[in-house]
């Protein structure tokens, strides 16, 4: 037992680190989920007294920070760790020890953040989690408004995990560029490897401004700096620019891996290759580049001049073009195929419809004057949860059902999977479809209680009910993960009749993955193997 534990703690194996990342993210998913439920219970009625305003503000700060940095990021990096080397025919990541170091930095970051519940106020005794919001706008983070240490826990935990993210991003880039097996030139990589390459490049560009801003904030708080200290002539808007030049690319950092999962799963369950591979690659790079110039669309209400507002409107709308191309290409992949409705595919279809809606509500908000009404309202909350839950989380669930057999050697239960899918789908739509409407009726976000204005109470009640249905669905999912580990059907090497290299080795793969390094001649090496009469390599 201790030996196993010791092996897992000291491991530099990409597969074990991948699983550690994923388990770590799932643990925090439960924490952040509970925080979301506290928020929803408080907002069930007008003038509710379930929690105090102080607790409520901590809950939404911790929910947002945790979900972004300690749930979605680690789980996505976990899948990258596990899959990228296997799919490009490598025996490990380029820098295995950097890989372990990055994971433990991320782990430390999360623990630091949650230690604030115990140690936040330091001298005052009782703990105190940060309550400045996950965006931590200046000057609320200044000493004058946040005198305790809770804001420092927020800053330092993200600083530490940020270094972990940068380390992993460098590692993925190096792995994809240098470790591919013979025959796999860039044009033959699985799309997943391509998309993680773009995502990692964006991590390098996005995390650095956040790190810089956080260092400046620490200088303000402890060394008498005045970058964001408005009482001493500092600028509140500079923080906004720094934060969102990180924050918006971050959205694409999270969603591009979701695209990656879809681009692997949809073809297998439609029994066709991905439609327009080169265009998919180009669209991803396009998204990566354009999304670096859209950040101020989070700031349309701060009083930028009309030229700046127009510029960020058109860049934001322009991101819709490559994103639209991707959706069309997935439809093109399904078109003329033979769709098998296994659970991973159900989640992918949910993703397609929901991500479409999320994109369209995004287009609505890119019309600046309309955003002057919608910004900072519950409409925005509904919109980005549509992206993150309806899009990214659905894609992640698809990935879990698809690759769990490879990671454990056992299939996840299809029956529980169907329960999970349909319950979560119903809960999701109850919550986030309905949540748009209070925003249209003038309900701002980040309020711990509200006046009983027409419609607000009923709508909030429905949203809360939906949240609990989602929570039940997550319990079914976790139960499925646990039970199937011991009782699931044996998976074999290739349960889905798939085409990429990870399915050519045993489940779970042995240490160092490949007994002999494979040689590939097309994008779908296992298709070539299974169809020697009509291999892909003939058409390249």
């Amino acid at each position, binding site marked *: 037992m201790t030996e196993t534990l010791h092996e897992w703690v000291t491991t530099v194996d990409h597969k074990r680190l991948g699983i550690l990342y994923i388990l770590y993210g799932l643990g925090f998913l439960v924490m952040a989920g509970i925080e979301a439920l506290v928020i929803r219970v408080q907002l069930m009625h007008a003038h509710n007294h379930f929690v105090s305003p102080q607790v409520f503000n901590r809950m939404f700060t911790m929910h947002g920070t945790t979900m972004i940095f300690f749930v979605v990021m680690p789980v996505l990096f976990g899948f990258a760790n596990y899959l990228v080397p296997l799919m490009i025919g490598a025996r490990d990541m380029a820098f295995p020890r950097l890989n372990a170091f990055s994971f433990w930095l991320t782990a430390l970051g999360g623990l630091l953040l949650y230690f604030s519940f115990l140690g936040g106020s330091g001298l005052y005794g009782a703990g105190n989690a940060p309550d400045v919001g996950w965006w931590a706008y200046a000057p609320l983070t200044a000493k004058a408004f946040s005198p305790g240490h809770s804001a420092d826990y927020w800053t330092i935990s993200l600083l530490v995990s940020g270094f972990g993210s940068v380390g992993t991003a460098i590692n993925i880039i190096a792995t994809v560029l240098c470790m591919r097996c013979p025959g796999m030139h860039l044009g033959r990589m699985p799309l997943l490897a391509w998309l993680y390459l773009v995502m990692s490049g964006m991590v390098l560009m996005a995390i650095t401004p956040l790190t810089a801003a956080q260092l400046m904030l620490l200088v303000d708080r402890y060394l008498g700096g005045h970058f964001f200290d408005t009482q001493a002539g500092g600028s*509140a808007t500079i923080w906004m620019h720094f934060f969102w030049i990180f924050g918006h690319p971050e959205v694409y950092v999270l969603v591009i891996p979701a695209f990656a999962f879809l681009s692997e799963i949809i073809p297998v369950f439609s029994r066709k290759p991905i439609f327009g591979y080169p265009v998919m690659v180009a669209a991803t790079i396009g998204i990566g580049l354009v999304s670096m110039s859209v950040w101020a669309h989070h700031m349309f209400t701060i009083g930028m001049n009309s030229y700046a507002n127009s510029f960020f409107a058109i860049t934001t709308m322009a991101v819709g073009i490559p994103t639209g191309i991707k959706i069309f290409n997935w439809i093109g992949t399904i078109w003329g195929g033979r769709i098998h409705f296994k659970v991973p595919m159900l989640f992918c279809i949910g993703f397609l419809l929901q991500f479409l809606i999320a994109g369209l509500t995004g287009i609505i908000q890119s019309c*600046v*004057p309309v955003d002057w009404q919608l910004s900072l309202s519950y409409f925005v909350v509904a919109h980005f949860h549509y992206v993150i839950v309806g899009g990214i989380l659905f894609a992640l669930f698809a990935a879990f059902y698809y690759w769990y057999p490879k990671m454990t050697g056992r299939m996840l239960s299809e029956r529980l999977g169907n329960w999970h899918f349909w319950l979560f789908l119903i809960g999701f739509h109850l919550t986030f479809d309905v949540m748009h409407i209070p925003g249209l009726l003038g309900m701002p976000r980040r309020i711990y209680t509200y006046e009983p204005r027409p419609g607000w109470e009923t709508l909030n009640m429905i949203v809360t009910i939906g949240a609990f249905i989602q929570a039940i669905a997550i319990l079914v999912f976790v139960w499925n993960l646990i039970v199937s580990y011991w009782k699931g059907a044996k998976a074999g090497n290739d349960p889905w009749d798939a085409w990429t290299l990870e399915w050519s080795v045993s489940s779970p793969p042995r240490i160092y993955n490949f007994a002999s390094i494979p040689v590939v001649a097309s994008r779908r090496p296992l298709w070539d193997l299974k169809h020697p009469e009509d291999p892909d390599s003939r058409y390249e």
Partner: protein
Amino acid sequence: MRLDNFLHLKRHAQNLLTRSAIRAFGLLSYVAAGFAQPSASYLSSTNIFAPASTPARSIFGLSLFVLAVTLVIFVVVAGLIVYAVVKFRNRAGDAEREPAQVYGSTQIELAWTVIPVLIVIVLFLATARGIHAIQDAPKPAAALDVTVIGHQFWWEFRYPKLGIVTANELHIPVSDPSRPTPTFMKLMSADTDHSFWVPELGGKTDLIPNRVNEMWMDPSRPGIYLGQCAQYCGTQHAKMLLRVSVDRPAEFEAWVRAQQRAAVQDEKARAGKHVFETTSCINCHTVSGTAANGRFGPDLTHLMSRTSLASGAAENTPSNLRLWIQNPDAIKPGSLMPSMKLNDADLDTLVTYLETLR
């Protein structure tokens, strides 16, 4: 096609869409909000689809246009997805044969790149026009100037040309479209970020320390319009409510004259005034003609002309006022108003005095 031809066509299409969409969404928002038709004592519903001022109306029109465009896109693309999923499902009769392997099609991919580009151009032109119309509107000579200062967690309104200072309830004149008297506001903050949002009168604009933002509105019907702070500003962000009273010209004149008068000096409330002037009330509050000249809290010179306390958190009644002075956390936990810890007798005389500040 020449650009102005194109713009003309686009405008035509937009008008057409707007008119039919207004009907659909007017109905929808009516049902959703269940608000009453505007009357003399109109109380707003905070619904963004019930605009009562030019900026709000122009946003409303643009939002219907973009809603219509996105709705069409949704129907087409979602239709394609659903059709493909149903049509190409694996049927029981199918053998283990794989379908035809198709790798892509340059023509089709080109088509679904060009169409979104065209849609983006149209949407951008409509947006740029909307931005310009609202943000770069010239200020007429008859405009009323108001300076709005955000505080944790209340609003200060100063009328520089009229010499009025008040809090939480903004009074402005109704603007007759034939002789517009819009209100132009300068927005500033004394501490953290805030955001001014009264949905029926316009979009929101942030109040940011060390920065002056601007915003205008020209409400065309009298009534009370509700809103609240929209940017997270600290513990009591939720109860930083906002109320705009749009007055008929005569009412507004009367309100201005009343606000310009000095504070009432009522002999019967002398004891209470003494309590007021000898406690720390005066560090934060102002009452003209007394020792109180603090600016940290709301100006109380005409406290009784306001309908609410604590930035809309409670109605302005004697019992609420008493509670607010003695235990502010009971009304607004985390507000910066301290508990004054007065004995009952002092508290009563103090409330009696404040009640005279009409």
